[in-house]
């Protein structure tokens, strides 16, 4: 019996948003009478934290703390159209729409504040704490609370804005395939270290070191959540998951979580996450979509590590103990 160790690397990129574009998302933003901001969307939170991120994006753009923002999604009677949450598009598409809507609302807010302070709107800035200040003369200020009250009850202004983000659809040229599939790409590189039991084909992933370039980590703790979970799913995809274990034979498909295999809490690799930020030109605050790509590089990195360990190539997913054992036996047979 021998436990053999190996490591492998993989590097990838990943497009943000629907391939070839043509996937719009809208947002509406309005202020309540006391200067809280309602973001209305029809975008879906799958658990990745879309609601929280949209709140932070709106808050940053308007110039208020995040807890002054309320997210109303996803009710089709109130929320304007969003293409949906998929293709790593949520943060990028909806975030841009929220920024646009929030900017428009902010402009009205500054105009009302300017009237109250008897200055030009272009001379005003926000402090991020809920106040509007005159640039260079911060003692001259007004709270957003008071601005909203004034807008509603005194000046008859709607502090609101509309946002729409659309990457125009690209149509591939038939013969050459010339096309514009995406406007920004996230990147990753993973090094995986494994142990392989050469008598049973069992693989233990000892560690994964993941470097992700995601444009901008809008909320670092939430980015970490998604990247850690994605890294786990990538390992799972590499070694465990299949609905049809004997594909293309259709028999023995798993029907429950006992039969559909995923790493358990006792199978976790030591996981390191390093994030780089190269802001994208058209991302909200530079953000790209990290949601999908974070589960990709582990798969080939693990495959390459298995080869490094035992010298057999498993080119079919998942890389099961059975496939490894068969390959080892074939290798031994020469």
């Amino acid at each position: 019996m021998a436990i053999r160790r190996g490591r492998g690397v993989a590097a990838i990129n990943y497009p943000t948003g629907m391939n070839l574009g043509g996937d719009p998302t809208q947002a509406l933003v309005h202020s309540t009478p006391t200067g809280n901001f309602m973001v209305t969307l029809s975008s879906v939170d799958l658990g990745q934290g879309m609601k929280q991120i949209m709140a932070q994006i709106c808050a940053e753009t308007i110039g208020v703390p995040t807890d002054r923002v309320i997210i109303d999604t996803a009710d089709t009677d109130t929320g304007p159209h969003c293409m949906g949450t998929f293709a790593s598009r949520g943060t990028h598409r909806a975030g841009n729409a929220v920024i646009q809507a929030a900017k428009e609302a902010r402009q009205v807010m500054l105009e009302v504040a300017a009237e109250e302070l008897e200055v030009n709107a272009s001379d005003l800035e926000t402090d991020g704490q809920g106040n509007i200040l005159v640039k260079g003369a911060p003692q001259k200020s007004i709270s957003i609370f008071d601005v909203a009250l004034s807008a509603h009850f005194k000046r008859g202004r709607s502090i609101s804005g509309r946002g729409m983000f659309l990457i125009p659809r690209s149509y591939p040229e038939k013969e050459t395939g010339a096309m514009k599939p995406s406007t920004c790409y996230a990147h990753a590189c993973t090094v995986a270290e494994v142990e392989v039991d050469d008598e049973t084909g069992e693989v233990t992933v000892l560690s994964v070191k993941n470097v992700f370039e995601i444009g901008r980590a809008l909320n670092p703790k939430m980015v970490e959540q998604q990247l850690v979970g994605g890294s786990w799913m990538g390992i799972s995809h590499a070694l465990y998951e299949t609905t049809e274990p004997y594909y293309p034979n259709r028999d023995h498909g798993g029907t429950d979580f006992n039969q559909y295999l995923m790493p358990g809490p006792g199978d976790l690799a030591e996981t390191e996450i390093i994030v780089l930020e190269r802001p994208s030109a058209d991302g909200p605050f530079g953000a790209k979509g990290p949601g999908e790509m974070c589960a990709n590089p582990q798969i080939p990195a693990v495959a390459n590590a298995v080869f490094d360990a035992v010298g057999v190539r498993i080119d079919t997913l998942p890389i099961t103990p059975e496939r490894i054992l068969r390959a080892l036996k074939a290798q031994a047979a020469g």
Partner: protein
Amino acid sequence: MELRKDYFADVRKDGLHEIGQPRPRLDSPGHVTGKTAYFADRILPGMLHLKMVRSPHHHARIRSIDTSEAEKHPGVVKVLTAKDVPHNVYTILILIQIGPEDETVLADGKVRWKGEAVAAVLAETERAAQEAAAKVKVDYEVLPAVFDMEEALKPGAPLVNEYHGQNYYLYDSGECRKVRFGDVDAGFAEADHILEQTYQSSPIEHAPTETTGCVVAPEGNDRFTCYTNTQAMFFTLDNASIILQMPGSKLHFVGGTVGGGFGGKVDVIVEPIAILAAKLTGRPVSFIYSREEEMQISSPRAAEKVVIKDGVMKDGRIVARKVTGYTDAGAYSRHSPYGAQKGAAHYPGPYTIPNVWIDTYCVYTNRTPSSAMRGFGVTIGDFALEVQMDKLARLIGMDPLEFRFINAYRDGDMKAHRQPTEGAALIECMQEASRAANWPVADKYMAMSSYRKGA
């Protein structure tokens, strides 16, 4: 997690108030107290339960369906078949002009995969619906089936889906989406080594802890509220509107709080039939996939087969890459033609290669229809590409990480689909991985940059 702000420091802006801050999630207090409301937490008085009668065969003609015994079963309110569905043949991407309509809401005359929905039973309890479902009699004439993509593409293979007329999706470019860049044959002729390898995957499941489903309530004003865990609200509403031939103004979708998606909840499967059931019975209807349905009936990630042929020079440059990708759509399109096309746009990966030839096929077989999943169109391609990169490096006796630096794309490089590279960061990711994993590479690679002067 470590945030390395020293990379790209010249283009990063700090000092924002809310962005970049690790604010607590506003939804977490609801999660930890069990108060977050998912669609299935809408428990409505008088709610009916919908259970599907499903095909036990991979491919069969339906001679007849007899629902009379099921309808008499205690607790059963209605049994729906194809004739009850106003626009029964549909395809979800019709909204972005990708046709033809090729799938039935409820099977009409034929089933094309094991598990296909044939009849919908509505009953007062889940148990009554299950019992009645067992009493729906369907007379099948079993037909030959095909499960393997290569077999499906051979002449004489059983035709899976008549709406296509052949076992592949017909793009405007023909039987596959194509990318042609440079002269791949000249590249192979020039190469020191040529390596052709085949990579494959089997379908996998999103396996969200919350299964796909919806709860529909008739509102009394001729409108229907659909509480759903769809990943795409209007996409689902608009498709439901087409299938039900009902103005979209009659439909009200409420969602946005989903127990995991991963791409598994973008198919419009449960909502239209549940709304129809609510309309025809005047009662609230719950249609929630069982775990078994989630595992074997809901769309998986497609199985794929990827053949990569590379020409590489001894100095590490890849001079030609030819990729042929096959996506196993199963019996119906759903999102697979889009996914196969996305693959064509993704190859040859984040590398600058002067001569590229790509064909991606979307193939029909008698399997569970596949669809989107996290990394759709790319994940399996990346597996294939990056294992191939490892093999190429070893073939020419080069360190696998250094080999990637040599070929990595940088700003301004022309991609195979004829867009100049912008915002590249592959090199920096690899540099950081080299450091973090203690996998040293030559100094010249650590000195590289994705930036190019003037780009």
